[in-house]
């Protein structure tokens, strides 16, 4: 009984501790929740810059017109410590970005969900993503 109570206490605290926190800036100030986008494109380059890295992709629409988009990522230091490096995202790689467009309507989006050709969602917090404490992907 005593140990069950203890675990209950611990679990309650865990839920509190996992409340959302903001990073370098609040994404909601930059991107528009009313403008969800799904971009299927080809990487043209990845900018490894602070405070956030950016992936640039060419997206072709139904008419064949190509538009270049910028997708905001996390901080380079953390990416590197997670094992993501310059060889992970390279020009020519096909990716799918599920995110939200910039409030000013320009071709910038946040990477709510970035999927790579092998189907691996490297940047999402699901299991198998390399998130902290995550089990290795099977």
């Amino acid at each position: 009984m005593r140990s069950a109570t203890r675990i209950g206490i611990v679990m309650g605290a865990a839920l509190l501790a996992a409340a959302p926190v903001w990073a370098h800036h609040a994404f909601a100030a930059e991107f528009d929740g009313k403008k969800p986008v799904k971009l299927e494109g080809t990487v043209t380059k990845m900018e490894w810059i602070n405070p956030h890295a950016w992936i640039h992709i060419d997206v072709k629409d139904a008419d064949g017109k190509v538009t270049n988009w910028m997708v905001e990522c996390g901080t380079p230091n953390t990416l590197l410590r997670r094992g993501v490096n310059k060889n992970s995202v390279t020009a020519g790689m096909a990716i799918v970005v599920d995110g939200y467009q910039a409030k000013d309507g320009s071709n910038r989006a946040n990477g709510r969900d970035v999927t790579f050709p092998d189907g691996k969602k490297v940047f999402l917090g699901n299991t198998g993503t390399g998130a902290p404490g995550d089990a290795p992907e099977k």
Partner: protein
Amino acid sequence: MKLQCALVSVLAASMCAGQGLTAKKAWTPLRTANGQPDLQGVWTNATITPLERPADLAAKPFFTPSEAAAYEKQVVENANVDRRRSDVTTDVGLAYNEAWWDRGTHVVKTLRTSLIVDPADGKLPALTPEGERRAVALAERRRLHPADGPEDRGLTERCILWPTAGPPMMPSVYNNNYQIFQGPEYVAIMVEMIHDVRIIPLDTRPHLPSGVRQWLGDSRGHWEGNTLVVDTTNFTDKTKFRGSSENLHLTERFTRTDPDTILYEYTVNDPATWTKPWTAQITMTKSASRVYEYACHEGNYGMMGILAGARAEETSSANAGAK
């Protein structure tokens, strides 16, 4: 693991008794070439222990080792999920999901349930009326002028200061890395987050005149036994550590308690903001990592995006009003 648990018990027991960690331990601190206790190297203060004790742990200042392990497991598992939300504003914010964070997976080595050790309830003391008034005024200012210009945005977005980078140094969402350098007359602390270096003179020179204000304040250090004590004043009125005033008087204590641990403690004394002083304690762990550059101004497209977004919203509102 057994050794770790045993160590933790010793740490916890000695802290319970309100005694310094070093007094209980046989370990003799390493010394620098000039005989100072050696704090040098790269350290991380990443931890999931919250600043304030959660309400459901109110009567529990310490975990047992097994409780700590269960807590860590729960926190990590709970955070490591796709938090897609139907509320799009929240969903946009949560796009910055767990894979981006690097906030650690462990509680502090003392197994405390909060970083705050004084007051004993692990909670921040109440704000003074002046502290409350200042907080309300700031919130109102931000509501009325969210993004007229870059000056309206927070110091983090402007790449000026990270609120946890110190002093005092607090665990944050990522880049929780510090490198300490010691010379005979100075200690320097390089902070990865926004890449600041704090220079701490060890002589007895007085603080700067009160009219001279600095983002990181003005630090003076001295040794008390094996503990480096750093006294900091002369903050700016914009530094605002958790809403503090420019007259915040901060005292930090660094004690290396074993080869891999610095017990870092700070006391916040700011009668203009809190009704009494408060103290927090964090264990810093020796890191095999290196401190990477975090040149925040390098490509701060986010600021441009936020201001452009604010202008677009104004135009949209004006057009809607004209119809």
